[in-house]
Every structure is written in structure tokens, then in C-alpha cells.
């Protein structure tokens, strides 16, 4: 995979390393709309190039990460984010797995308890003392 963002299209120049890192981080967190399993940083799609240019311009202009992400979301929706925001429609996405884990733990606990009781009863029937 290409990790060097600048190598893909027109070379982008940055005044300092912090800005360059910010640009890399942002384009890796934004999804390319055309080839949906690639980030903006990875994609060769023309739209991804255009969007990278937009992000570049905004980074250079000193816009905050929040502003840049808001710009993208306003146009393409939450879909462009690899990490969707926590809100009403995404509660299940974020907390569903924990809920399922909790249910699994409860079921396992109940199964173990029932089996333990059964063993005790069996032992009692055979006249042995429970250990």
C-alpha cells in the first residue's frame, strides 16, 4: 500500500511537519466515496484527489480538524468518517456489541450455575458428601 500521500498526485508542500502530519491523519480518517474501502489517503480515484486537494488547502489555511471534518460531513454525510459519531442513530452500533457481550455473560453464568446444582444433586443422591 502507498503510505506516502504526496507521492500519489501533485506533490504537496508543507511549511512544517506538524501540518503535514495533520494532513496525513485527516486523509487517513476520511473515507473515499468512490472506492469505499479505501481512505482518502490511499485512493487513486479522481474524486479522492480533488478532496485531498481541498483538505490540503484547508490545512494550509489553518482550519481546525473539526472544521475540515464538518466540511466533509456536510457534503457527504457521516459515511465519510471511519469512526462514526455517537448519536441517536448510532447507539446500537456503538453499544450493541457490549449489550450482546453482557447477554452472553448472563447466559453462561446461568448455565454454569445449573450444571453445578445438578452435580451437587447427583452427588447427594449417591450419598456422597459434596466437596
Amino acid at each position: 500500500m502507498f503510505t506516502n500521500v504526496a507521492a500519489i498526485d501533485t506533490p504537496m508542500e508543507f511549511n512544517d511537519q506538524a501540518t503535514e502530519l495533520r494532513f496525513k491523519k485527516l486523509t487517513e480518517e476520511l473515507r473515499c466515496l468512490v472506492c469505499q474501502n479505501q481512505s482518502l489517503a490511499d485512493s487513486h480515484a479522481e474524486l479522492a484527489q480533488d478532496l485531498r486537494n481541498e483538505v490540503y488547502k484547508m490545512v494550509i489555511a489553518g482550519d481546525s480538524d473539526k472544521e475540515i471534518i464538518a466540511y466533509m460531513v456536510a457534503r457527504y454525510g457521516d459515511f465519510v468518517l471511519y469512526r462514526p459519531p455517537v448519536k441517536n442513530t448510532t447507539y446500537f452500533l456503538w453499544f450493541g456489541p457490549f449489550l450482546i457481550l453482557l447477554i452472553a455473560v448472563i447466559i453462561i453464568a446461568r448455565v454454569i450455575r445449573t450444571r453445578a446444582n445438578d452435580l451437587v444433586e447427583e452427588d447427594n443422591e449417591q450419598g456422597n458428601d459434596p466437596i
Partner: protein
Amino acid sequence: MNRYLLPLALFVVLVLLLAVGLGIDPKLVPSPLIDKPLPVFNLPKLKVPDDSVKSSDFLGDVVLLNVWASWCVACRAEHPLLVELSKNSEMLIYGVNYKDTRADALQWLQRFGDPYRASAFDQHGLTGIDLGVYGVPETYIMDRAGIIRYKHIGPITREVLDNTILPLIEKLKASST
């Protein structure tokens, strides 16, 4: 008996979820622009570069805005429907010519017909980005207040035109102030 019931129920639920998932097209991303005003733009006209097409030109009318390009194969597929619509109705159809060259675009219109009242020439695709375009063709319908009421991604089909677009246009025209 009971011990099999729960796994069976879970299995059925899983199958149903997967079945629904199969029916959803992951390429269709819901647009955050629905029920929002059309993004402001001001672009040169494709045919008359000195003149312009502005988003404010559409205010007061129900408008269909079609994003197209001469390099876009799917655009060719839907084009006859737009040409037909422009001939058979009073519908205001505007175009956004997306990341194209003027020569190619003009030639394309000459060859396949020009259903557009005017096409905006978006050479660098920047208005496309404002519109959230990610795959041409895309089609927007605005009500008289300039609010986007519908967006179709990909080529319009006869079915979409008859079942969704035309009824919506009728409704918007009837209900507007």
C-alpha cells in the same frame, strides 16, 4: 425442546438480518443535503462562457438539476429519458457539466440532444464537491424555495422517472407557494 428454541430463534433473526443486508446497495450513500438549500454556486454557462448559471436562478421554480459529463458512460444511458422529459413537459431541467472539457461536452450535446435549459460548466468539479457528488450521473430536485427534496445517484431509469421523480415534481408544483 426448549433448549433448541432459543438457538433456532437466534438463527432465524440472523438470517433475516443478513437477507436485509444483501438487499441494501452499499454504493448508495444517503445525502446529508436532502431538505437543505441547494449549495450556492455561480458557474459559467457551457454554451455561453460569458454568461453564468447561478443557484439563485432556480428560485421560484421546481427544478431538476442533472450532473453529467461526456466521459460518463452511464450518463449516456439516462440521457434519452431527459431529452424526452424536456420535450414532453414544462419541466425546467438544468445541467452541471462535471469535470469535462468544453469541446467534448458541446459535441456530446450535439450528438445526443440537449435537454438542458442551461448547463453550468464545472471544470474542476468544485461545485460537484459542494453538491456532494461522488459518481456521475446524479440528479437533484429542488422545490420553489430552492430546497433539495430528492437526490438520485446513478442513471435515472424509466421506473425511477415514472414512479418517483414525476410524482414528486407534480407534488412539489402543486404544493408550492
